[in-house]
Every structure is written in structure tokens, then in C-alpha cells.
């Protein structure tokens, strides 16, 4: 359904629609995703913004097909890549798409890389297995890739182990690895959270550049409102397993249409504003085992009224590419 907003005739590259995922634990069933839909086009950066437990990473893992089952179970929805539903294809086809169609980079590059193999071996292995390259070809291509992500002395460092790389270099190596099979969509799950600001800027630049060059679709998963503001074309805000607001970057920051987004923007300290009063959001994100009835945000929402406590708000479309799941979306967006 979100696909219809920007494109009508031709399919977007990757469309997630009405995704439902639950975690079956001994404490009960946690509905981690409750009908999540978004899409990403070639050359576009889609930012998924949310706090821990909002389901932003679970969505990414569902797209990649790397959820741990059990406890996670996909109970509904589809993930269409070039129109093909990845949730129903054979495991072989799924593996084929993984890496060459959709690739992913993680927050913690140190644990995402295997410590007992060299960086070069880990990248080259994929090239040999998936693209049938010879050892020599794979090595040459690996050095090219490390060069591409601007690892200095790539020809030498290709034989080093992950622990010999600094945090920023490891993240670069992981980006190189994810690019090895020329993916059309790259999912970056908190790619710079573990990095220092100066290195973060380098990595975001690199991602942006590579994306422009290859016209890759980029799904950027993060909690950092600053990073999103710098790179995102469109933004989906997630809360308690739902997308509560969807908008292009400028509109979302200028006139948020959901009280959660609004409160989030008011609650972060800004480098360029001194002494602004931070508005706090009361309470804590809900436990997914025990989501409040009605709108899941209502216990923390300053605008909560009667319908919020009882009725789950539906998506309200607010012009091209904008939507908000709030009973009072129009009021919020027009607050001035």
C-alpha cells in the first residue's frame, strides 16, 4: 500500500507490506511487528527511525531472512524484491538473493566478522563460492573492493585479521564485503552507532558516495535523528512494532505529523541550540508482551484523548508520501 504513494505503474525495487512477526517466548507471545509496510527505490535512502524494541532491526532481519526461528515467526505480509515475494520462495532462491540482491551491514563490525579468518579471506570466499571466481581473481577483486572503501594499503591489509583493524576500518571492510556481490539494496543497521563522530562522518560519506555511484537502494536503520537528517530521502518512524509516521525528510523535521515524532524532536539536545528546554517524553516504551490497548503511544502522549485509549489509529494519508497513524494527525501536522 505504501508502494502506491510514489509509484503507481512500475514496481519499486523492494516493497515490504503488512509484515507481521511475533516472538514466541516462555513469557508469552510478543507481537514484534504489526503490519509494517515500506518500500525503497533504486538510488534512494529510506531511513527507518526507532528506539530499541521498536522493531526496526527485526524488519531488516525479516527482509534478509536471517531471523532466528524460533522464537521469531513471520505470521503475515510479504517482502517483494523486483515483484518476487521472498517470504514464499525456496530457501535456495532466498540464499541467492541474499548478498547479490540485498546485502546488510551491522552495527558491530567486530562481531560480524569472523576473528579467525583474514579480512581478505572472508570477502574472497563469497566471490569464489557465489561468483565462481578463482582464488587469484577473487583476491584481485577483494583488493579492489577494499580500495573502493578507501582502506589504505589495501594490497597489504587484505591479509590482516579483523582485530588488527580499527573500528572505522572494520566498518569499511564490512561495507566492502557487503558490496562484493553488487547488491541492489543495502540495509545498514545502525552502521555508525558504535563509531566516533569524526569516523561516523567518514562512513556516512562513503555510503552516500557508493550509493550514488551504483544507484543502490539504501535502507538506513538508526535511532540517531542527526544522521537521518543528513542523508535520508524518506523516513519511516517506528514505535512498538508499527510505522507511526512516514514522510520525506524535510516535512518530517519541519512539521511532524505524529506526537511521538514531535516529542522525539523536542527531546534531543542540539549542538547548534544552547539552553533550549528539553521536553521529555514521560514513561518508557511499552513491553511488547503487554502493549497498551488503543494507540500504543497513548500512555506517553501529551495529546492523548478518549479514542486513543480504546481505538487503534489507522494510517491517515496527509498528501503525497506522507502518512501518520494518529487520530489527531491533521491537528498535529498543522500545529504551526
Amino acid at each position, binding site marked *: 500500500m505504501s508502494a502506491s504513494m510514489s509509484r503507481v505503474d512500475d514496481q519499486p525495487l523492494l516493497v515490504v507490506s503488512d509484515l507481521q512477526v511475533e516472538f514466541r*517466548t516462555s513469557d508469552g507471545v510478543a507481537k*514484534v511487528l504489526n503490519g509494517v509496510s515500506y518500500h525503497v527505490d533504486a538510488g534512494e535512502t529510506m531511513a527507518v527511525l526507532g528506539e530499541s524494541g521498536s522493531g526496526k532491526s527485526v524488519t531488516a532481519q525479516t527482509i534478509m531472512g536471517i531471523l532466528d526461528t524460533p522464537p521469531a515467526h513471520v505470521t503475515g505480509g510479504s517482502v517483494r524484491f523486483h515483484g518476487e515475494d521472498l517470504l514464499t520462495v525456496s530457501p535456495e532462491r532466498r540464499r541467492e538473493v541474499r548478498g547479490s540482491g540485498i546485502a546488510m551491514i551491522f552495527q558491530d563490525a567486530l562481531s560480524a566478522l569472523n576473528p579467525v579468518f583474514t579480512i581478505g579471506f572472508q570477502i574472497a570466499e563469497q566471490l569464489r563460492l557465489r561468483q565462481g571466481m578463482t582464488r587469484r581473481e577473487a583476491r584481485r577483486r577483494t583488493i579492489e573492493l577494499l580500495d573502493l572503501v578507501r582502506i589504505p594499503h589495501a594490497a597489504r591489509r587484505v591479509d590482516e585479521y579483523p582485530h588488527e583493524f580499527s573500528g572505522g576500518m572494520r566498518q569499511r571492510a564490512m561495507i566492502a564485503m557487503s558490496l562484493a556481490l553488487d547488491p541492489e539494496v543495502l540495509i545498514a543497521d545502525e552502521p555508525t552507532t558504535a563509531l566516533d563522530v569524526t569516523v561516523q562522518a567518514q562512513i556516512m560519506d562513503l555510503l552516500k558516495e557508493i550509493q550514488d555511484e551504483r544507484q543502490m537502494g539504501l535502507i538506513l536503520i538508526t535511532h540517531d535523528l542527526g544522521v537521518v537528517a543528513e542523508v535520508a530521502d524518506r523516513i519511516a518512524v517506528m514505535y512498538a512494532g508499527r510505522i507511526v509516521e512516514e514522510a520525506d525528510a524535510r516535512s518530517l523535521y519541519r512539521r511532524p505529523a505524529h506526537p511521538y515524532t514531535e516529542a522525539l524532536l523536542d527531546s534531543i539536545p542540539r549542538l547548534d541550540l544552547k539552553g533550549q528546554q528539553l521536553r521529555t517524553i514521560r514513561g518508557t516504551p511499552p*513491553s511488547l508482551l503487554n502493549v497498551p490497548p488503543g494507540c500504543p503511544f497513548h500512555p506517553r502522549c501529551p495529546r492523548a484523548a478518549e479514542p486513543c485509549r480504546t481505538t487503534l489509529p489507522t494510517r491517515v494519508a496527509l498528501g503525497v508520501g506522507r502518512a501518520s497513524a494518529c487520530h489527531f494527525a491533521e491537528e498535529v501536522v498543522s500545529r504551526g
Partner: protein
Amino acid sequence: MTEPTDAISSTTSRGAYAAATTEGRQRGLWSDAWRNLRRQPTFLISAGLILLVLVMAAFPQLFTSVDPTYGDLSRQRQLPSVDAWFGYDNQGADIYARVIYGTRASVVVGVLATAGTVLIGSTLGILAGYYGGWLDALMSRVADVFFGLPFVLGAIVILTTLNAPGSTPGPVRIVAQVVLSIALLSWPVAMRIMRAAVISAKQNDYVKAARALGASSRRIIFRHLLPNCLAPVLVYATIALGAFIGVEATLSFLGLGLRSPVVSWGVMISDARDYVRIAPHLLLFPAGFLTMTVLAFVMLGDAVREALDPKLR
């Protein structure tokens, strides 16, 4: 990823806390653990079983009036009957009476050897893990030396050194010696487990916070490290208990442990080994009691471990 335990706000638990506060009592880990244990069926069943075994060990005459050492070869390996519920063994002695009288030696060896191993091992493990440095290096190397000794060989050396060949030490003395040799040879395992647990627990920020408050080493060890490091040692202890009862049998079989007329389950099991096919009841009954006892201790250990972990309660 998701934290299901977060933000619990069920009304029932809130009511319970309100009740506790009006009572005016502040609870702690141990009292909470005890309250939890008293309501746990696994704990009640295992504690009941262990109590029964202990009574059997202390007062065997309450359970049987038959002399366990009296053998009559005419009833050799007879099957269970009304006269002898568990049948007769190779010497024609009553198996039921022997199992009952065998409890004492087995349980005493098992429990004391486990207690000794865990006490020595955990104490040294905590000290090595907490203080580190040369103390850790020294103790770890000493532990390695003991660890390197083959168990049975080590026990043979210890027991033959303590008892001159041909001498017949009394049952109390021999049990003490067996317990001692087991504890002496197995404490390194408990020490390693405890040391590893302490080293990882010590890194936690709550230890740092306690030090910043000026807490003494004693307080950090007893309040912070011990409760958080007990679980793996408890698991090891429950497994070790069964193994140690078996070790006692091995030593008896080698003529170094208990000898007639003292009976133990281990001795009975090793006596039965040649007759498993023709008279399985010789093995079945002592082995069954041994299994039940070990199971009871394993259950007890699990229940205590869970009670001490607020997340599992």
C-alpha cells in the same frame, strides 16, 4: 533485542509489593529465595527425598531389622520375594538390608567429598579471581599440578601412603581418608569454575560502583561476587556428587576404600557387575537408590539456582 521483562506493570505484583511495604519489611535476595523455594514443588520433592536418605543413613535400623552382613549361600542370588523385598546377593545376604545400611557410607562420602571440593575450590577460586596477579598465577599453577594427576592413581598413592599395607583402619577413618583424597584431587575443577565466574563478574560496573562507595573486599566478595558466581559451581556440585559416590566404589573395588563388613552402594554395584545378566536385581536396587539420590540433589541444585536468580523466579 526486545526486552520482555522491561516495564512490567501488572496489577497483581503491584498489590503484592504494597502489601509487603505496609508490613514494613524490606526484603533481600536470600529471604526472597527462601520464600520462593518454599513454594516450589521441585524443591519440596527433592528436599523430602534427601531428608529420607539422610534418615536412612543415620538410623538404618528404623528401616530393617535384618543384619546386612549375614549371608547364607543357600539363598545365593535369589529373586525378590516377600521375605526379602529386593532378593539376595551373591553371598546370600539380604539386598534390601544392605542397600539401607549402604546408604550411610555412600551419602557421607558423596556429600562430604562434594562439600570439601566445593569449599576448597570456591574459596581458592574467589581469591584467585578477585585478587588476580601473582596470587592467581601461583594458585592456578598449583591447581594445574593437581589437575594433571590421574584421579585413581592419585587416590591410590594417597590411600596407600596413609595406610600401611596389611593394616585394617576403622570405617570412620577410611571414610575420612576417601573423602580427603577425593576433595584433594578434585578441587581444581571447582576452583577453575569459580575463578572464571568471578573474573567475569568482577568486570561488571556494579563492582566498580561498590568500590566507589568504599566497600571492603569482604563486602564485594560476599554481597556482590558470591551470589552472582554460585550458579555454575552449584551445577558442578550436583554432578560431582553422583560421580564421587561412584569413585568410592572404584576405590573399594581396588581394595583401598571401604571393606567388609562396611557396606556401601558403590561396593554393591561393583560386586554385582559379573552377574548383571543372570541376576540383574543385584545391580538394579543399589543403582536405583544411587540414581534417586543423585537426582534429588540435582533437582535441589536446580531449584536453589533458580531461586537465587531473580530473573528466573
